[in-house]
């Protein structure tokens, strides 16, 4: 895909929880096929930012433009998903009592996800091929028929990423994918996200600075609900304002 311009543009987004502004006139934009990392101290509004984009919560004010001219504000989560925004949650949210294959099969993008088409539907060979391809991408081919609840933590995270990819999103929102992963798993996840960035725009929230250095091209720093700095990892780490915010957290963003 060779799109020009922005896939996502948040203008003056405010998310007000009874006086506490989780997002405070936040302006944030992402380009097509960009891998963007969002960092920031706890409570900076990172997860809230993903929530308002994907429709999990509705912002108090502001506009969120997706693609050329689609305003996501006010749309419900299912519709935003169908428009091409995929969301990976922080805690693995998968279907533990279904097999890995079934997890992916349910997530696959289809013309209709209504009750009756789903009741009658059988997977076509093309759809099965896509699922097999997804299994290869996330490295779970050998576990296709394993009950998803029996996977390791890291494998569950990959499975959920795979489920989101099969929805064929043009924008992928990934919330702390490597929390609780081993070093090797973290590195593999980084490679996975970088490979996916060739086809999708991706926004990743992350705390682990080693991981951020591995994958980041441009980093956005969020604090108290607004973007305070944007740039390469080196630029961001050199920024005085950022240092101030992370003061006392020197071991996180040293």
């Amino acid at each position, binding site marked *: 895909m060779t799109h020009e311009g922005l896939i996502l543009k948040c203008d003056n987004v405010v998310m007000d929880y009874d006086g506490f502004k989780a997002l405070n006139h936040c302006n944030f934009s992402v380009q097509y096929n960009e891998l963007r990392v969002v960092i920031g101290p706890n409570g900076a509004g990172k997860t809230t930012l993903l929530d308002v984009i994907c429709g999990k919560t509705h912002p108090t004010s502001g506009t969120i433009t997706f693609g050329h001219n689609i305003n996501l504000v006010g749309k419900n989560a*299912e519709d935003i998903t169908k428009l091409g925004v995929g969301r990976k949650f922080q805690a693995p949210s998968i279907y533990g009592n279904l*097999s890995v294959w079934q997890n992916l099969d*349910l997530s696959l993008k289809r013309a209709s996800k209504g009750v009756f088409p789903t009741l009658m539907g059988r997977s076509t060979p093309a759809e099965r091929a896509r699922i097999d391809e997804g299994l290869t991408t996330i490295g779970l081919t050998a576990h296709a028929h394993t009950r998803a609840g029996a996977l390791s933590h890291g494998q569950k995270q990959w499975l959920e990423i795979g489920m989101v990819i099969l*929805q064929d999103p043009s924008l992928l929102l990934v919330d702390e994918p490597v929390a609780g992963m081993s070093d090797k798993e973290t590195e593999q996840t980084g490679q996975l996200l970088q490979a996916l960035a060739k086809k999708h725009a991706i926004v990743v929230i992350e705390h682990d600075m080693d991981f951020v250095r591995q994958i980041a091209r441009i980093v956005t720093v969020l604090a108290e609900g607004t973007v305070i700095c944007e740039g390469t990892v080196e630029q961001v780490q050199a920024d005085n304002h950022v240092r101030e915010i992370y003061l006392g957290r020197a071991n996180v963003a040293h």
Partner: protein
Amino acid sequence: MPEPGRPTFNSRETLSVYLAAGLFVIVLPLLNLVPAEDSWLHLSDFRLNQFGKFLCFAILALGLDLIWGYCGVLSLGQGVFFGLGAYCMGMYLSLQIGSESVYGSELPDFMVWTQVKELPLFWYPFKSFWGGLLGALLVPMLVAAVFGVLSFRSRIKGVYFAILTQALAFAAWLVFNRNETRLGGTNGLTDFKQALGFRLTDPATQRGLYLLTVLALCAAYLLCRWIVASRAGQVLIAIRDSEQRVTFSGYTPWVYKLFVFVVAAGLAGLSGMLYVPQVGIITPAQIGVLPSLEVVIWVAVGGRGTLIGAVVGAVAVNYGRSVLTNSFPEAWPFILGGLFVVGVTLFPDGLVGILRKVFGRTPAADQASPPEAAPAAPRTGGPGA
């Protein structure tokens, strides 16, 4: 080979389902008909009729298993839908009594002694058999649809939904108890004589009703199995496991819940419709809070989320009741409560779970890979490895 990832019902289990169906369709009626009445093999008309009642309850339990066992939505109001089905058929049967009634009036007896001079308008459709039949299926489904839209759409979940359905059961009980509802009040509808020209007291009619019930149960089981094995059935399990993920995969969970709630209500209506002519009476006592809770116990004892467990549980608990209430009438409520507590805490998969363990397979084995495909696959290292 089945499509990968479809839950394939274990062939041994399927075989035992066919065997059980054969037992109920062929063996029991034969034991009723062929051996002499004093033979030890003889199954009395009373016992056959009793099994017919249990199998009605099994249909009711199947519906609850679908919504609770698979979709994780606990309904404590299935008795209401059972009652609606039963009352619809009961109204047809009441109007068939005609001049055979105690007072010799064309109106049902209870209307005569409560001074109702004319048949209330809502009774008119039930003059015809088809009115009774369709009403028994459609009225519960319609009520479930309205109730379901109002609650599922407002994202009422879990224990709140359970409480709401219990309130529905209580409200229905109150309404059906009132004489002003024109449904016989506390005494309900009873003293039925005939349906479609068949005398209900004739053992042959009762045998026919029994067979009809077995066939309806088989059809209901196959319907549920088809739903569960479809991709929509997997969506139901997915909703139970992670409703949020389902939403963010482009499905609308509340519509799926509504669908399965309405199907369960239809099955409950079918169950009530078959129950009435076999038992001969329907009263508000059979549709309130307690009967609704009992259905939950049947499914829990049999094994939720297994379909066949609902059937096993309904038959086993009710058979146990018929035996034990003769010997220890006071102890039955404690036995029933004890069964529930022991079942839920020690045997979460119920009788079917125990059977599966004894015969050496776990639910996980349902979805395990075929042995020849499992170990040889090269990639185990994760993405990008």
